[in-house]
C-alpha cells in the first residue's frame, strides 16, 4: 500500500515505514516560538530542568504578535525572550522583522521534506514547501528544545484536487475559503491535507503559503503541497541547506477526496464569527465597512500588497473607512518600497504598521470599536479576535479587501481588475 506525503516524510525521519494512527517520536529539523507562546515555553523549559538547548541553530524565537510592545506586561515577556536567546544562542527575530510564518521560509530555515514544529497554530504554512510542519503548544516546544524531538500521531490524509485556472478577481484565498466551506471548521481534525491538480503549477509561492496557512482552519494538522520547480527553486534561493524533496507514492491511499473546479470559483467572504461561514461575495455586497486590514501570515506578502496596489492605484479609499496594512516582513516592506507599491498604497490612504501580526490578534495596531465591521485578509474571524467581541470580522482576499476599502462597503474586486 502506497504512502501519502505526510506518511512518506515521517517514515523517512523515523527510518522505517510508519502507518496511519501510529504514535511516533520524531527528530525535528526546526522549531519556533512567538511572543505569545515563547515565554511559557521558556518557563516550562526551566521547570523541566533544561540547562541548554539541543541545537541553537535549529530554534528561532520571534517577537511578532505584540511588536513593538504595547504595554509593560508584554515588555517583560519580550525581555525574557531576549535574555533566553542571549543565554542559549537560539535565533531571535525582534520587533519589525516580521511574522514568524513569513520569516521561517524567507530566512531559509525550512526546506522540502523537513519536519518542523512551531508554538503557533499557523505553523502549517510551511506545508507549501512540502514540509511536515505543524503547530504545538508551549510545553511541546520546551520539550523539543531540550530533546530535539516531539511525538506525532501519523495522520490520515484528505486529497484535495484543484483543477482549472483562477478566473479574473479570484485568488488563492478564495480557493481556501471554498475548501473551508466544503470541509467545515472541524472537517479535517487530526488529518493531513495534500494538494494535487492542474491549478497548482500556476500558483506562486506566496499564493501557496496562503492556502497552506489556513489548513488549521479546517482542523488539519498539515496542508501539504508536493515539491515542484516553484517550491524547490524558492527553497534553493532562500536556504543554504541541502535537501532531498519527498513525494507521496502513486498508489497512496487517501481517507477522502475533494475536487474543486477552480474555473467556476467566484470571490468568497467568510462572514462573522466562523471561518467556515463562507458566502459568495454577492450575498454580502454593500455591507458597510469601517476598517479594512491587509496583512498577516495568510495574506501580508508582496503579491498581496501588489494586488491591493493594482486596485487602489491613483484612487482614494472611502473617507469613512480606515485601511491598515501590516507587511508580513521587513523584506516584504522593503520590496514594496522599492517597487513603488508602498507609495501607491499610502497615497490611496492606507496606514502602515510595523511588519508583524499587526491588528490580527487584537493586542494593538487597530482594535475595532463596538459594532464596527472589519474586512480582513487574515485567517480568523472569531468573536473578539481583533480585540473587541462587539465587532464583526469578514475574511476575504486582498483584492476584495482593497475594493471594499475603496467603496466603504463590501465590494466586488472584479470591477477593478482588467
Amino acid at each position: 500500500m502506497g504512502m501519502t506525503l505526510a506518511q512518506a516524510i515521517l517514515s523517512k525521519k523515523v527510518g522505517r515505514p510508519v502507518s496511519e494512527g501510529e504514535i511516533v517520536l520524531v527528530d525535528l529539523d526546526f522549531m519556533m516560538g512567538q511572543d505569545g507562546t515563547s515565554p511559557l515555553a521558556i518557563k516550562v523549559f526551566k521547570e523541566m530542568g533544561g540547562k541548554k538547548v539541543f541545537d541553537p541553530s535549529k530554534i528561532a524565537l520571534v517577537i511578532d504578535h505584540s511588536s513593538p510592545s504595547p504595554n509593560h506586561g508584554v515588555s517583560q515577556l519580550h525581555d525574557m525572550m531576549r535574555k533566553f536567546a542571549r543565554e542559549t544562542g537560539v535565533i531571535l527575530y525582534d520587533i519589525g522583522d516580521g511574522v514568524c510564518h513569513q520569516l521561517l521560509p524567507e530566512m531559509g530555515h525550512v526546506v522540502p521534506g523537513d519536519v518542523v514544529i512551531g508554538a503557533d497554530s499557523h505553523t502549517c504554512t510551511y506545508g507549501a514547501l512540502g514540509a511536515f510542519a505543524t503547530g504545538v503548544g508551549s510545553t511541546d516546544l520546551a520539550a523539543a528544545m531540550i530533546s530535539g524531538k516531539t511525538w506525532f500521531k501519523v495522520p490520515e490524509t484528505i486529497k484535495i484536487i484543484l483543477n482549472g485556472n483562477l478566473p479574473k478577481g479570484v485568488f488563492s484565498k478564495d480557493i481556501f475559503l471554498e475548501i473551508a466551506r466544503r470541509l467545515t471548521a472541524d472537517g479535517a481534525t487530526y488529518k493531513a491535507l495534500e494538494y494535487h491538480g492542474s491549478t497548482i503549477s500556476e500558483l506562486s509561492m506566496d499564493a501557496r503559503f496562503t492556502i497552506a496557512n489556513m489548513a488549521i482552519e479546517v482542523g488539519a494538522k498539515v496542508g501539504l503541497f508536493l515539491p515542484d520547480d516553484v517550491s524547490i527553486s524558492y527553497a534553493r534561493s532562500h536556504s543554504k541547506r541541502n535537501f532531498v524533496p519527498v513525494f507521496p507514492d502513486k498508489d497512496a491511499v487517501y481517507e477522502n477526496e475533494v475536487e474543486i473546479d477552480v474555473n467556476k470559483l467566484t470571490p468568497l467572504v467568510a462572514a462573522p464569527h466562523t471561518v467556515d461561514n463562507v458566502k459568495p461575495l454577492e450575498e454580502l455586497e454593500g455591507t458597510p465597512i469601517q476598517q479594512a486590514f491587509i496583512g498577516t501570515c495568510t495574506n501580508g506578502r508582496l503579491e498581496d500588497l501588489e494586488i491591493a496596489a493594482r486596485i487602489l492605484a491613483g484612487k482614494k479609499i472611502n473617507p469613512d473607512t480606515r485601511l491598515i496594512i501590516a507587511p508580513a516582513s521587513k523584506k516584504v516592506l522593503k520590496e514594496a518600497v522599492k517597487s513603488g507599491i508602498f507609495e501607491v498604497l499610502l497615497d490611496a490612504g492606507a496606514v502602515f504598521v510595523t511588519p508583524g501580526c499587526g491588528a490580527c490578534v487584537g493586542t494593538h495596531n487597530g482594535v475595532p470599536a463596538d459594532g464596527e465591521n472589519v474586512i480582513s485578509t487574515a485567517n480568523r474571524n472569531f468573536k473578539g479576535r481583533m480585540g473587541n467581541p462587539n465587532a464583526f470580522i469578514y475574511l476575504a482576499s486582498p483584492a476584495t479587501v482593497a475594493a471594499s476599502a475603496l467603496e466603504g462597503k463590501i465590494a466586488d474586486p472584479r470591477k477593478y481588475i482588467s
Partner: protein
Amino acid sequence: MELKGKAHKFGDDINTDYIISGRYKFKTLDMNELAKHIMEDLDPDFYSKLNPGDFIVAGKNFGCGSSREQAPLAIKHANVSAVIAKSFARIFFRNSVNVGLMLIEADTDLIDDGDELVILPKEGLIKNVTKGIDIPFKPLPDFMIKILSDGGLVEHFKKHGGYSF
C-alpha cells in the same frame, strides 16, 4: 479513581479565544489570574459559578483556534477536573495532555447544563446521576495515560529525563 462534579454546558466549536481571550494571554503568566477569566466572552459570570471538580461539557471541536496553552492551563487552574466533548481540536488535545488536564470524548447530547456527573476514567464511563444514565467513552491511549499519570509533560521529563514511551 472517580471524579465528581456538576456539568457546565457549552456548544460546538468553542475556540481558545473564548476559553481565554488574547487580551489576558499577553498580559501575564499567572495562571490563577487567567483562570478567573475563562469563558468570559461567552458568560461573564462563569468563573463565579464553578465549584472545584466541576466539568466543562461541550459539543464538537472544543479548543479550536490558536495554539495557546494558556487555554487548558487556565481551565486546569480553575479547578475543572475534566473537559468532556464530542471532539477536540488537535493542538488543544496535545496541550491538555502536556499540562495534565483530562479530556474525555463522549456523546455529550446526553448531558445538560447543571447535571451531576461521576466519571470513572479507567472504566471509560460517565454516570449522569441527574438523568440516571451511563455514557461510555473510549479510554485514552497508553502513552497519554503515562504522561497524565506523571502529572503532565514537565513531570514526565523530570522523572525520565526526556520522552519515555
